[in-house]
């Protein structure tokens, strides 16, 4: 259930489901290979030197494995392993356990973290969930960076004697690890979803910041507290992170249910015979793809998705369904009425204010030629409809023309027709983005 609940916006699980050995994207492949090579070298070195402090290594390995079992899905189809990550970082940052000074090498940190992660991933594979090798590779690379910087310094007596210096250094390295994780994950998403890097990075940091703070603080706590309470620190300071994780799981769960519900209820227009089957879902998928192409950030992308799903909800208030439901074929006034009625419905929810606005203005032409004439006469030009409204307008028109057909010729003709109308009706940039999305899709077919 938690797996289901965690899958959220923008793309359905069927697009994302892939087997661990099907590393499709080049960026992912590069990342996994890099982590793999590093790991092999580290394991070889550790094997040659022998394991330092095996008891401590096993305790941390177990914590990392436990954290990997309890992976967490965050909104936006992100999978993280907060407890495992915190455990691995703490192991890299460890100086003392009780009165004992620990001296494991950076290679040993990488080896222990990797073995813990792999053991923790096994239960996921056993129940048929994807192993998500790329996520593990990202975490391993971040831990490796911290370990290779900090392990040589840990034996430095200056670091050991001045707690202020140690705290500053360890905090800085933890922040570095979290930043690196955001950058690498954003790069993967650029590759996977064709998002823009800057947009993906900002989105990633926004989603990861709160949980990242908790992970970083817990890693530091475990590393420091091990000095006072020994290995008991692992259990004690995993507890608050566990509480945090439970809270996040519930949050991600309600986000997912929310989206599922809007998707499901958007279908009432189809069951009532107002629009063609699958119309809302197709328009929303297309709109989100266009939005991503145009560099829209994730929170606005979610609003766009909601608006696209519900763009025809106003038709419920019509007494008789429009034949075939194609809004592009009815008069401008009727279209406007449907948009207004739909926006009123959404407005009632009181929480989706901007979604209502997007739906309300979904039919407005990009450039009102009448007003443009007035503008020359000295009147102020009316504001352009929001980008999301322009996207829905184009996606809706495209779907009314093409429907569920997969014929690339028909799609190209529809794009061409929209392009001819970019002088006033459709936003040229949106239509070009639509064209790129559609082209990519027909290549894939």
């Amino acid at each position, binding site marked *: *259930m938690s797996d289901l609940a965690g899958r959220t916006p923008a793309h359905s699980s069927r697009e994302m489901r892939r087997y661990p050995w099907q590393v499709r994207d080049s960026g992912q492949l590069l990342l996994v290979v890099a982590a793999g090579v590093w790991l092999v070298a580290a394991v070889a070195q550790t094997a040659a030197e022998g394991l330092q402090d095996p008891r401590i290594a096993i305790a941390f390995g177990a914590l990392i494995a436990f954290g990997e079992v309890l992976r967490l899905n965050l909104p936006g189809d992100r999978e993280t392993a907060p407890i495992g990550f915190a455990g691995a970082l703490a192991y890299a940052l460890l100086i003392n356990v009780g009165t004992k000074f620990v001296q494991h090498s950076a290679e040993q940190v990488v080896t222990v973290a990797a073995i813990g992660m792999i053991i923790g991933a096994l239960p996921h594979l056993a129940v048929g969930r994807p192993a998500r090798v790329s996520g593990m590779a990202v975490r391993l690379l971040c831990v490796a960076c911290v370990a290779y910087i900090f392990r040589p310094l840990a034996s430095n007596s200056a670091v050991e004697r001045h707690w202020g210096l140690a705290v500053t250094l360890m905090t800085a390295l933890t922040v570095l690890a979290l930043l690196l994780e955001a950058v690498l994950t954003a790069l993967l998403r650029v590759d996977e979803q064709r998002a823009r890097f800057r947009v993906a990075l900002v989105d990633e940091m926004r989603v990861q910041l709160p949980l990242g703070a908790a992970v970083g603080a817990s890693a530091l*706590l475990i590393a420091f507290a091990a000095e006072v309470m020994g290995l008991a620190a692992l259990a004690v300071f995993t507890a608050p992170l566990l509480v*945090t994780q439970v809270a996040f799981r519930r949050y991600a769960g309600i986000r997912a*249910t929310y989206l599922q519900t809007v998707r499901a*209820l958007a279908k009432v227009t189809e069951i009532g015979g107002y629009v063609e089957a699958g119309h809302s879902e197709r328009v929303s998928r297309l709109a989100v793809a266009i939005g991503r192409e145009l560099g829209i950030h994730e929170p606005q992308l979610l609003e766009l998705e909601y608006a696209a799903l519900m763009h025809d909800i106003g038709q419920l208030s019509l007494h008789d369904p429009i034949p075939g439901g194609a809004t592009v074929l009815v008069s401008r006034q009727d279209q406007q009425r449907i948009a207004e009625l739909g926006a009123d419905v959404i407005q009632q929810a009181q929480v989706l204010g901007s979604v209502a606005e997007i739906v309300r203005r979904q039919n407005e032409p990009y450039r009102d030629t009448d007003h443009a004439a007035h503008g020359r006469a000295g009147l102020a030009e009316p504001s352009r409809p929001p980008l999301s409204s322009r996207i829905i307008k184009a996606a809706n028109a495209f779907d009314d023309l093409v429907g569920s057909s997969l014929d690339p010729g028909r799609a190209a003709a529809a794009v061409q027709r929209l392009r001819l109308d970019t002088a006033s009706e459709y936003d040229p940039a949106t239509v070009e983005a639509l064209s790129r999305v559609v082209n990519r899709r027909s290549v894939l077919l």
Partner: protein
Amino acid sequence: MGKLSRVALLYIGAVVVSAVVLVARGPFTGLRWQYVVFLGILVIVSESRATQLRKGQLTWSPSSAAMLASVVLAGPVGAAIVGACTALGLLRGPSILQRVFNTAMYALSAYLAGRAFLALGGQVGLPDEQSFPGIIAPFAGAALVLVVANHGLLSGVLWLTRPPDGTPSGVGVGLSGRLLLSDLGYAAYGLLIAALWSVVGFFAPLLVLIPLFVARWAVAQFAEQQKAYEATVGALCQAVETKDFYTRGHSDRVSRGSVMIAREIGMRGERVEAIRYAGMLHDVGKLGVPTKVLQKTGKLTEEEYAAIQLHPMRGLDIVREIGFLDEALAGIMHHHERIDGRGYPMGLAGDEIPEFARVLAVADAFDSMTSTRSYRGARPVAEAIEELRKWSGTQFDPAFVDAFVAALKREGWLRREAPVIAAEDLATVTAQDHDDPGAPLRVIDSL
């Protein structure tokens, strides 16, 4: 807190006076102010971002951890001062009197906890390796005293200021055992703060509290999303209902009625939540029924009747993909089954009908009868109850009818005004109501 009784004022006064006296007695010599100041600031910060448990009445924050750390580091008087820092929390809302009471309550609880710590043999000051594990027992005693004193004092004031209408007072709601346990859990972090202080200094409380703050942030986000979710579902259900003037608000009321029954029979919290949504969504499938059938005044043909009978299945088709409890789905699908097996869509009988469906059926029929229809006015509640009783055992599950009647007697039923029909709406009224047990659908006898 509106107007307070004399007893309540006396109680608050007693708490305030004892807190002031105990703190004023000191001793202040040897008090480690650096801990008091730092932990006090921490309490102010966490109180400023406290979570509201119940609107305008109860708030909660992890400041107990900071207070217990001060018990270990600064002793009873220091702890009381740290506790009193809650007064400076920047939380908007509480009245002056509430603020004064809270301050005194925290100061008093923290002081008592400090005394308990000393009485059990605890040593005030920075703990080192030799302090463990001897410090654990006194600390646990102090934590218990703090939490119990806090909850006890708070329960007292809530009980004395409970609303006069005799609703089962909120004491149970706000101060559940779960909250007490989680408070004890947070209190344990006080010891960790104190222990870590020797390693990383004032950095310790910051580090310890970050994960807790993040957890609370996530909980707040969850609550916000849930509220948004509820509002959205409500709005969409209303959109479905606009098609029919007379049934506006029906889903909402059926939802409320079902929840009343569910609470009465003691359903678990999450099932009550699920039945609430099931009630709101139970008729979405009606959209698949052509408008002309819903608005037909004469007898229905076999096909038209079949179309109406299909609506629970249509509803299920719509909501199937929503990942909530299967029980709610079963409830939506079977809410028109009858105990005697003559319902639709599957003709289940007795216990074969899912529990949710049997609950929904009662609330559904009751709201239909007490609402105005084009062919009759709204019937009084008493008459509708009589009708429910009449069909109890044949159409409805007697246990749920009894539960509903009991809940109605206690809580009453929010009647709505008879709708005033605007001329433009005349076209969109239901001529027959498939939910009305008093006026069954009339079907043309088969040929």
